[in-house]
């Protein structure tokens, strides 16, 4: 799409676009190029010089059981975060959509956790589930359930999933509510007159009309779980116990900065780059399709 009316000259537009191009070149393309370049090198044992190793970093990576485990961890984690945050949000949105008065107040009360940073959310949930003394763990102990996410893999995963989903409920709620309110009321009324009950109406009318919103949220939430939950994991588990909550982004950080294994970290960055690329294409395809409707 182009403008019919434009201004002439080329140095002014160049000047206008220059700040963005400079920042993009220096902080995006140069580092991304470096990641690709470094992924083909490995430092010698003394860290004095690096040596060209071709695909070796990638070969090592895909033979490293911890790295393969981080794929699986990322998949499970993203799936759970997406399902939990979307499920709760849809449930709340369905209820908020059914009331006439006061839905604005409910919306206000439900959207503000969106503004709480993942890292802060991590601290709040960690506080409730501190082994032995946290409010939740203490009551769990009382009913005979031993809570210690510092030692127990499954509990650690459960805690980071809940903490990551929590703030996300607001976001999904907003989009679901907007989607539900766009469903023509007349169609639902007609179905109600025909005697269709709530769940029947939901399955046959509302949910199909909500499909574009749902698909959009699915992609966006997976992207969130992949990249924006670093703060939650760093504050609650630091990837443990035994790397059971080390998602891929966390591993890039821990191998690159804590372990100082730059070649491997760079190779992992390249793998992530490909994954983001694919997710972006999926998102873009979806937007294109939406435009056709």
């Amino acid at each position, binding site marked *: 799409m182009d*403008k019919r009316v434009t201004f002439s000259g080329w140095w002014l537009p160049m000047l206008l676009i220059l700040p963005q191009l400079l920042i993009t070149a220096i902080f*995006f393309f140069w580092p*991304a190029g470096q990641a690709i370049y470094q992924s083909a090198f490995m430092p010698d044992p003394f860290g004095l010089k690096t040596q060209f190793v071709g695909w070796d970093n990638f070969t090592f990576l895909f033979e490293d059981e911890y790295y393969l485990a981080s794929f699986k961890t990322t998949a499970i984690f993203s799936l759970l975060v997406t399902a939990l945050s979307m499920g709760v949000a849809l449930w709340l949105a369905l*209820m908020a959509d*059914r009331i006439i008065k006061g839905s604005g107040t409910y919306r206000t009360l439900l959207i503000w*956790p969106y*503004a709480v940073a993942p890292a*802060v959310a991590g601290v709040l949930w960690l506080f409730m589930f501190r082994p032995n003394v946290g409010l939740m763990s203490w009551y769990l102990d009382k009913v005979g359930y031993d809570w210690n996410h510092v030692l127990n893999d499954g509990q650690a995963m459960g805690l980071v999933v809940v903490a990551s989903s929590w703030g996300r409920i607001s976001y999904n709620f907003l989009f679901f509510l907007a989607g539900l309110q766009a469903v023509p009321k007349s169609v639902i009324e007609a179905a109600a007159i025909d005697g269709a009950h709530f769940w029947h109406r939901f399955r046959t009318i509302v949910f199909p009309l909500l499909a574009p919103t749902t698909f959009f949220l699915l992609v966006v939430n997976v992207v969130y779980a992949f990249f924006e939950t670093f703060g939650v994991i760093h*504050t609650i588990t630091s990837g443990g116990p035994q790397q059971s909550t080390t998602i891929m982004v966390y591993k890039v950080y821990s191998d690159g900065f804590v372990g100082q294994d730059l070649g491997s970290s760079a190779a992992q960055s390249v793998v992530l780059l490909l994954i983001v690329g694919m997710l972006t294409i999926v998102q873009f395809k979806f937007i294109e399709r939406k435009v056709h409707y």
Partner: protein
Amino acid sequence: MSGMVEKKGKAAWLVHLGLILGILVVCFPIYLAFIASTVSSGDLVRPPMPLLPGEHFIANYKEALFSGVNTPVWNMLLNSTIMALGIAIGKIIISLLSAFAIVYFRFPLRNVFFWLIFLTLMLPVEVRIVPTYEVVANFGMLNSYSGLILPLVASATATFLFRQFYLTVPDELAEAARVDGAGPMRFFVDILLPMSRTNIAALFVILFIYGWNQYLWPLLMTTDPDMNTIVMGIKQMFPSGDDLPNWPVIMATALLAMLPPVLVVVLMQNLFIKGLVDTEK
């Protein structure tokens, strides 16, 4: 509208009850954090913790704000404010300008530049942390505001948003400006900017929250506690080893960390929702 679908009486009551229950569950972690910020450390190591506010509210917030653990919290709040404002304003300015260039001019490599900016969508900071860190370190920008802000300022999303908006601006306006002999910058400042007001405000709300809530980047960038931002500084308040964390002060800090972005969302709710929908489209 008839009440065929909306429930009345008892059923409506149940729906309200369900929503209130949902809100209570969602808000509970924050309520608990508030309680923890008003009691003494001693109250928190003897379970179960109290569920009503204690008497140490002023003492805890005073300790957090003016002494903190590594650095006073007011200092971290200041750093966060500078970073969030820098990112939000910086992104908006460079995007307004580059979108103007792309939409209103024909110049060599225009499409190439457009695609280069578009590609940055695929490069979140989490993916390129180690090499970006090295670039910033080589510029000597560790522990500086420019190091915190500049690498996060380029944004394809904002550029797209303004591009989309400019494309909806009637051509007659630019035509009229040209006939009147007004130059492009005059048109930009006098006509385009005032028309973009709502878009700028909506974007500002989203970008401010984005900047404020950054975690990984400040974590790498600021080794000097005086440069810590509040969101990443909270984790630094936990002692290493077996020492007990000072939970009341940590929780007071957590509440102070969420206050500015929460206020922005609640007070500017309509702009926030517009920004959210616009940036995700």
